């Protein structure tokens, strides 16, 4: 278990408790998702050592940061981590360059795997280096905050709702940079968020927190499709699928994406993409309808043969939520209870899922 992140925490604050036992992948993006007060920020602060859990064990890819049973608590400044706060929290007395160099100067030269030029280019802040933080936009400040954290070449990058303080436009400005971090750097990230949208775009692994406890922890595609979690209840319910480009239709400007584990494909309108380009997309439960026959006399582009796995009542009496299996890829469909009865749905039944729309995420 050396390539993993082990986090066991017991926090007993007077009006707040967190008890989690997580074993997370040692690479990629893990989202800690939950509503405010669910304990996700507390978890992150404990991992950074900014908060001291009453008892706990924290090990990052084999390096122990806290082990209460053996009296080990590594001070925050001795932990090889990068922390991006909700507000960028740049040092007001330093220029952008001064902020970026702050952590960079404080690590041993041999440990520097990211240099200032690389980080500045990666986050698109090369032209801002001589500015004072108060002369930057909110989005620029946050990008400097992320670059500053990266420049300590951390073994773990912690991001505490880095987009929450920004408006929708600024969020859209930063998300591509976060995706680049994910794709180009081999630094595991823990990403705290209460936005399903950000989680769907960035996360490989999802931890669902509620009331200081972890309700679920697993790969994003699998976890979002679980019917026993409140995630499935919202209007936003849906699954995230990671496929790869298998063909491009120039005449109709459609890209064909092969689903993982199977030869099933779906087609999406998109500019040309190279073969085997990984693509992540979200299929919302409300955009999936069910049909007993393969209805090719329809404008709906994507039809997949699926098997009904299970169903649960949705958040209102008129709908049910059906979990489907498309040759190994889970899907969710939100249909009316009336339709369910008309189709006489039951587990094991084979039918066709019609996907009205697919949202490309990256």
């Amino acid at each position, binding site marked *: 278990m050396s390539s993993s992140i082990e986090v066991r925490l017991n926090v007993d604050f007077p009006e707040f408790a967190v008890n989690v036992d997580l074993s997370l992948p040692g690479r990629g993006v893990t989202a800690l998702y939950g509503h405010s007060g669910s304990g996700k920020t507390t978890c992150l602060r404990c991992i*950074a*050592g*900014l908060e001291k859990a009453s008892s706990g064990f924290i090990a990052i890819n084999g390096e122990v940061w806290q082990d209460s049973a053996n009296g080990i608590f590594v*001070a*925050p*400044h*001795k932990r090889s*981590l*990068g*922390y991006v*706060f909700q*507000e960028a*929290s740049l*040092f*007001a*007395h330093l220029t952008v360059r001064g902020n970026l160099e*702050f*952590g960079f100067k*404080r*690590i041993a030269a041999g440990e520097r795997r990211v240099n200032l030029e690389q980080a500045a280019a990666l986050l698109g802040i090369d032209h801002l280096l001589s500015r004072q933080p108060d002369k930057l936009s909110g989005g620029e400040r946050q990008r400097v905050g992320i670059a*500053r*954290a990266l420049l*300590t070449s951390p073994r773990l990058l912690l991001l505490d709702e880095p987009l929450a303080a920004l408006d929708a436009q600024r969020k859209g400005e930063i998300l591509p940079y976060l995706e680049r971090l994910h794709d180009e750097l081999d630094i595991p990230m823990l990403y705290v968020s209460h936005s399903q949208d950000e989680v769907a775009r960035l996360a490989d692994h999802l931890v669902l927190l509620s009331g200081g406890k972890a309700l679920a922890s697993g790969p994003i595609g699998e976890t979002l499709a679980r019917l026993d979690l409140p995630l499935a209840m919202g209007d936003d319910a849906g699954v995230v699928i990671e496929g790869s480009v298998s063909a491009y239709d120039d005449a109709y400007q459609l890209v064909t994406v092969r689903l993982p584990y199977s030869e099933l494909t779906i087609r999406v309108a998109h500019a040309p993409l190279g073969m085997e380009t990984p693509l992540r997309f979200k299929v919302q439960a409300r955009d999936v309808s069910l049909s007993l026959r393969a209805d090719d006399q329809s404008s709906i582009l994507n039809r997949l043969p699926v098997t009904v796995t299970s169903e649960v009542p949705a958040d209102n009496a008129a709908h049910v939520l059906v979990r489907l299996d498309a040759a190994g890829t889970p899907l969710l469909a939100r249909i009316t209870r009336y339709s369910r009865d008309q189709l006489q749905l039951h587990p094991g039944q084979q039918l066709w899922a019609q996907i009205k729309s697919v949202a490309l995420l990256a």
Partner: protein
Amino acid sequence: MPLGSADLAAIWLTLKLASLTTVILLIVGTPIALWLAHTRSWLKGPVGAVVALPLVLPPTVIGFYLLLFLGPNGAIGQFTQSIGLGTLTFSFSGLVIGSVLYSMPFVVQPLQNAFVAIGPRPLEVAATLRANPWDTFFAVVLPLARPGLITGAILGFAHTVGEFGVVLMIGGNIPEKTRVVSTQIYNHVESMEYVQAHWLAGSMLVFSFLVLLALYSSGKTKSAWS
């Protein structure tokens, strides 16, 4: 020459006293202000109140107790005698001790306000960027508290220049040793030397006005004081 040599000696002694007091207060006052800004201890109230006492007490009260403590029968006086320093009353060292206590709130409070205004976040950021606590203090806290440091230094200096009661109680009025500008003005008035008194008093007035003008005209330092 409107200012006599005794006047010049008094001015020189005043500047020396105020400078030394300010330097000591910045060194001693910074940890106190830092502690007051961050502690959750029950001692915060009592310590804050003690530091602020000179704001409300008549200077003669402070001078009186210092005289007792530093005098030959006082606790500190006995100690300084036992290590061969003699007593500190009616000496320049005694004046410095008195001034440090008397001007303490004028340095500690702007510093404390500045440290409170910085908040915990920059300290946390510094820790996540590998800075140990000392490093954080010099690289982050002090630079961010600069307006408070400047305000504290100016107020501490100016207030020491303006003190009279404490000086008179523990320093006496010894030329070139403990006779500062404020006591020298008092001497002139006692001796009916109104012209000389005017020159010194007027200089003090202009000096104090200029200091406060500089303070209140600078937006940065004002915010740290209020």
